[in-house]
C-alpha cells in the first residue's frame, strides 16, 4: 500500500494545488484571485516533473511504463490547456466588479473552475495507475464529473447550461454501462484486481480454449460504456452539442482529457482479456474484435461524414474529434503484437503517440477559436464560431490564421507535420495485425477528412477577408495566453515532427507489453481457483475462494 502511494506523488501534488486554488480563488483581493491560475499552472508543471522524476513501482504488471508516460503527457498538454483556459472563468463577473459592483464570492466561480480542472487531470493520472476495477471506476468518474460542471459554468449563456446537463445525463448512462460491465467481469473471475482477472481469464482459457462468456459480456459492456469518454459510436451523440455549447477553451479540454482517460482505461481493460486469440494468436477474442472493428469503422466514418456538412467550426472540430477516436481504435484492434514487437506493429504505442499528436494539434485549432470573438447583431460579443469567421484570417490576423492553417493541415495528417507521424503507426500496426479492410477504411476516411480540414485551412489562407460581416466583425480581446498557447501548439506541430523519432521511442517504451502467465503465483497468492463459468456466475463468493 505504501508503495502504491509512492507512485501517486503527481496526483498528491495536484490535489494539494487544487486545495490551495480553491481557497485563493475566492479571496476578496483581485490580485490574489488572479494568482490562482498561475498557482494551478505551477502545480501542474510540478506534477509533471515529479512524474518524470518519480518512476515509482510499476503500477500495471503488463504495462510497466504506461502510467509515467500518461502522467507526463497530460501534465504537459494540461499546461497548454491552462494557458488557453486562463481568463475564461468569471470574465463577465470580474468586469462588473471592476465597474464598482461589490465582490460576492458566492457569485464567482473562478476557484471552482481551476480546482475542477486540476481534479479532472488528476483523474486521468489515477486512471493510468489503476490496478483495480473499483479504482478504475472512481478515477474515470473523477475525470468526468468536474468536466460536467466546467461545461455548465464555462460561460453565462443558457447553451452552456444545456450542454452541461446533456453531458451529465449521457455521462451517467455511460458510467452505468461500464459499471455493469465491471460487475460482470468481477462475477466471472471473482476478483476486482486487474492482474488477477487477467490471470484467471488466461487460466480458464487453458482449460477450455474459449473465453468465459460472462467475462466477454462484461468486457463488451465496459468497452461501450467507456466509449462515451472517447466519443465513439454509439455513445457519440452528445459530442457536437456539448462541444458547441461549452466555451471554446473548455471544448479543447473536453476533446483531450476525457479522451485520454478513456483510451488508457480501454487499454487496461482489454489487457485483462489479452491479445492472444485468433489464428495469429495476436488479436482479441472474436466477439470483442468484431465489436471494436465495427465501432472503429463507424466512429471514423460517422465523424468524418458529419464533419463535412457542418457550418460551425466547433462542430467541425467536434465531429473530427469523433473521427480521431475512430482512428485510435484501430490501434486497439491491432493490439500490441507479440512481446518485443517493433513500434510499427505495436498498436498500443501508436495510440499513446497519437494522443500526444492529437492533443497538440487540436489545441492549436481551439486556441484560435478561443482567441476570436464577434459582435452579434444585438451588440453583445459572442464567440467566433461560424466557418465564415475564418475567412481571410491569414491577412487580417496573420498569427492566428497561420496557427489555424498549421493545425488543420496537421490534423489532416499532411506528411511533414506531426499528424502524419501520428497516423503512420496506426496504419502500420493495422497492417501488421492483418486488419487490411480496417486499414482501407482508415485510408478512405483520411481522404474524406481532407475535405473539411483543407476547407478550414483554405478559408484562412486563400480567401479574401469578409469586408461586410454579418454583425460587427471580429475582435480579439482574449488574454494573450491563448494566442501564445496556440503558437506553441503550431510550433510543436511543425517542430515535434523533427523530434518524432525520440517521442515515438518514448511511446514505444510506455507500451512495452509483457504478458506473463505466472502459473499459480498471482492466482494462488490471492486464493482464486480456476472456476468454470457457470460456477462463477451463480456463486461469485466461491469463485474468490473466500468463505
Amino acid at each position, binding site marked *: 500500500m505504501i508503495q502504491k502511494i509512492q507512485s501517486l506523488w503527481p496526483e498528491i501534488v495536484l490535489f494539494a494545488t487544487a486545495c490551495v486554488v480553491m481557497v485563493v480563488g475566492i479571496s476578496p483581493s483581485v490580485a490574489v484571485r488572479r494568482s490562482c491560475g498561475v498557482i494551478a499552472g505551477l502545480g501542474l508543471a510540478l506534477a509533471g516533473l515529479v512524474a518524470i522524476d518519480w518512476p515509482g513501482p510499476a503500477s500495471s504488471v503488463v504495462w510497466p511504463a504506461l502510467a509515467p508516460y500518461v502522467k507526463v503527457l497530460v501534465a504537459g498538454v494540461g499546461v497548454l490547456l491552462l494557458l488557453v483556459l486562463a481568463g475564461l472563468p468569471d470574465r463577465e463577473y470580474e468586469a462588473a466588479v471592476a465597474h464598482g459592483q461589490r465582490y460576492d*464570492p*458566492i457569485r464567482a466561480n473562478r476557484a471552482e473552475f481551476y480546482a475542477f480542472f486540476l481534479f479532472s487531470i488528476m483523474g486521468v493520472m489515477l486512471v493510468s495507475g489503476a490496478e483495480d476495477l473499483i479504482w478504475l471506476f472512481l478515477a474515470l468518474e473523477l475525470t468526468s464529473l468536474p468536466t460536467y460542471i466546467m461545461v455548465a459554468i464555462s460561460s453565462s449563456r443558457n447553451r452552456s447550461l444545456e450542454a452541461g446537463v446533456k453531458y451529465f445525463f449521457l455521462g451517467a448512462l455511460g458510467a452505468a454501462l461500464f459499471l455493469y460491465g465491471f460487475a460482470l467481469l468481477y462475477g466471472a473471475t471473482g476478483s476486482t484486481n486487474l492482474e488477477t482477472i487477467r490471470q484467471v481469464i488466461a487460466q480458464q482459457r487453458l482449460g477450455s480454449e474459449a473465453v468465459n462468456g460472462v467475462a466477454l459480456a462484461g468486457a463488451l459492456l465496459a468497452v461501450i460504456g467507456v466509449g462515451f469518454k472517447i466519443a465513439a459510436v454509439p455513445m457519440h451523440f452528445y459530442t457536437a452539442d456539448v462541444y458547441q455549447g461549452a466555451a471554446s477553451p473548455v471544448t479543447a479540454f473536453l476533446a483531450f482529457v476525457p479522451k485520454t482517460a478513456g483510451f488508457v482505461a480501454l487499454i487496461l481493460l482489454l489487457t485483462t482479456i489479452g491479445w492472444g486469440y485468433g489464428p495469429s494468436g495476436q488479436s482479441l477474442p472474436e466477439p470483442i474484435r468484431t465489436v471494436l472493428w465495427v465501432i472503429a469503422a463507424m466512429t471514423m466514418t460517422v465523424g468524418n461524414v458529419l464533419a463535412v456538412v457542418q457550418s460551425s467550426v466547433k462542430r467541425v472540430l467536434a465531429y473530427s474529434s469523433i473521427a480521431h477516436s475512430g482512428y485510435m481504435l484501430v490501434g486497439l484492434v491491432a493490439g500490441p503484437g507479440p512481446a518485443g514487437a517493433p513500434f510499427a506493429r505495436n498498436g498500443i504505442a501508436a495510440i499513446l503517440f497519437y494522443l500526444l499528436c492529437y492533443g497538440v494539434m487540436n489545441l492549436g485549432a481551439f486556441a484560435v477559436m478561443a482567441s476570436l470573438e464577434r459582435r452579434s447583431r444585438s451588440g453583445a460579443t459572442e464567440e467566433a464560431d461560424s466557418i465564415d469567421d475564418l475567412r481571410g484570417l491569414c491577412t487580417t490576423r496573420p498569427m492566428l490564421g497561420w496557427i489555424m492553417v498549421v493545425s488543420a493541415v496537421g490534423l489532416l495528417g499532411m506528411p511533414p507535420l506531426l499528424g502524419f507521424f501520428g497516423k503512420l503507426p496506426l496504419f502500420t500496426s493495422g497492417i501488421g495485425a492483418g486488419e487490411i479492410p480496417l486499414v482501407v477504411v482508415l485510408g478512405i476516411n483520411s481522404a474524406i477528412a481532407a475535405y473539411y480540414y483543407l476547407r478550414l485551412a483554405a478559408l484562412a489562407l486563400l480567401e479574401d477577408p469578409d469586408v461586410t460581416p454579418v454583425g460587427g466583425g471580429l475582435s480579439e480581446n482574449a488574454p494573450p495566453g491563448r494566442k501564445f498557447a496556440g503558437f506553441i501548439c503550431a510550433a510543436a506541430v511543425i517542430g515535434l515532427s523533427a523530434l518524432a523519432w525520440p517521442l515515438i521511442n518514448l511511446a514505444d517504451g510506455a507500451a512495452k507489453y509483457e504478458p506473463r502467465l505466472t502459473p499459480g503465483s498471482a492466482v494462488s497468492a490471492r486464493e482464486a481457483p480456476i472456476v468454470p463459468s457457470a460456477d462463477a456466475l451463480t456463486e461469485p463468493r466461491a469463485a474468490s475462494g473466500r468463505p
Partner: protein
Amino acid sequence: MDLSSYLPILLLITMAVVFAVANISLTLALGPSRQGPVKGTTYESGMDPFGTARKRFNVRFYLIAMVFLVFDIEIIFLYPWAVAFPNLQAGTTESWVWLGRILFFLLTTVVAYVYGYRKGVFRFD
C-alpha cells in the same frame, strides 16, 4: 445452468407482488367507500394545507447540507482510524505514516470548511 441459488429472490418478488395485490383488492372488496370534501383534503385529519408546494427554497439550505456532509464524511473516516490506530506500535514508521495520513485528510476537510466560510455559507443576511 444452475439457477437454484436465485430461488429466494424469486420467492421474495412473488411475496411482494402477492402482498401488494392482495392488500389493494381486499381494501376494495371489504372497505366502506365514503366520499366527501373533508375526505378529499391532503391531510384528512391534520392541518389545512396552504400556499403552493412549488416554492423556491433559499440555496443556502443546500450549502449548509453540503458543509454538513464534509463533517459527516470526516467522522466516517475518523472513527475506524481511531479504532485501529492504538493497535500500532508507538514510534514506528508505520504509526507516523498513519498519523500523517489522517492529518492530511483533516487538512483537506479544513480546506473545505475554509472554502465554505469564504463563500459565505454561514452568512445569513
